[in-house]
């Protein structure tokens, strides 16, 4: 069982940071919504630190996802093949753009994903900062509370868009290459 170093980094970026972030979103949306409902059942005062830590960890995940995507995986994706290259396997962007049936994966999917993904750390960092600063006092600021919930919704939607396109693009033109890492050796039966 082998994996290339580039495929491993793509896995860490998407399945590690990205998917973990998306999963965490559902939890924070429920928690923030619970705090937005008037007379919501039992939001205990000691719930505050948990939500703060949760949002700070989500911000960390979001930053790791966009930074690893933009500065580690994306350069491999958009690598320029040397003149005369006919096998575009190691050049995903050029591979997608070489055929009319796949070009939209880049010109719509990647063009959208590469920018919208950056809304994720911006919005969730803001949410973490506001919740950390105001704590339980956020109950007395309904507009701020709604804005935080709205920003987290934007964050969730943006990460879902980025995750969807990332998975589909990598399925059509995987980022491969680099050192081969042997994970496990089996026997042929």
């Amino acid at each position, binding site marked *: 069982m082998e994996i290339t170093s580039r495929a491993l980094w793509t896995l860490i970026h998407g399945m590690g940071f990205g998917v973990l972030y998306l999963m965490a979103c559902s939890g924070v949306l429920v928690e923030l919504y619970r705090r937005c409902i008037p007379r919501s059942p039992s939001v205990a*005062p000691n719930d505050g630190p948990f939500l703060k830590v949760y949002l700070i960890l989500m911000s960390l995940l979001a930053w790791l996802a*966009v930074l690893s995507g*933009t*500065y580690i995986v*994306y*350069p491999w994706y*958009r690598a320029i093949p040397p003149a005369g290259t006919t096998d575009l396997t190691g050049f995903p962007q050029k591979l997608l753009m070489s055929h009319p049936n796949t070009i939209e994966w880049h*010109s*719509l999917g990647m*063009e*959208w994903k*590469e*920018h*919208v993904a*950056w*809304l994720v750390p*911006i*919005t969730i960092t*803001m949410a973490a*900062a*506001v919740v950390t*600063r*105001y*704590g*339980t*006092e956020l109950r*007395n*600021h309904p*507009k*701020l509370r*709604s*804005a*935080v919930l*709205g*920003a987290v919704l*934007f964050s969730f*939607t*943006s990460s879902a868009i980025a995750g969807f396109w990332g998975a589909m693009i990598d399925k059509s033109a995987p980022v491969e290459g680099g050192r081969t890492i042997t994970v496990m050796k089996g026997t042929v039966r």
Partner: protein
Amino acid sequence: MTDMTSSDASQTARLPNGAGSAAILATGIGSFTMAVLAILGDQSPAIKKLLIFYGPTGPLSGVTTTAIAIWLLSWAVLDIAWKRRDVTGVIVPVSLCLLAIGFLLMFPPIGDLF
């Protein structure tokens, strides 16, 4: 125990909404800036070249770095200006509108209209 909790609550209840509004408006400004820079980079080869801060990543490096810098700078400036006072309630809807416009402009069929 109850006294301590209500005393804490009365102290924190004095927090004005300025700091939170500053964070939210800066988010709207940062998102909108990123969308505008992405469109400018797409439309103008000269701007595209200027936005290449890191060669292997191309203009995306400049678009995101500049937008993040503007987001953080506007947050710092607004926070200093507003943290000790309450600001008008219109800031929050304006911020969410900026965020929504930025989000929509990043969708290529819409961004390509400009």
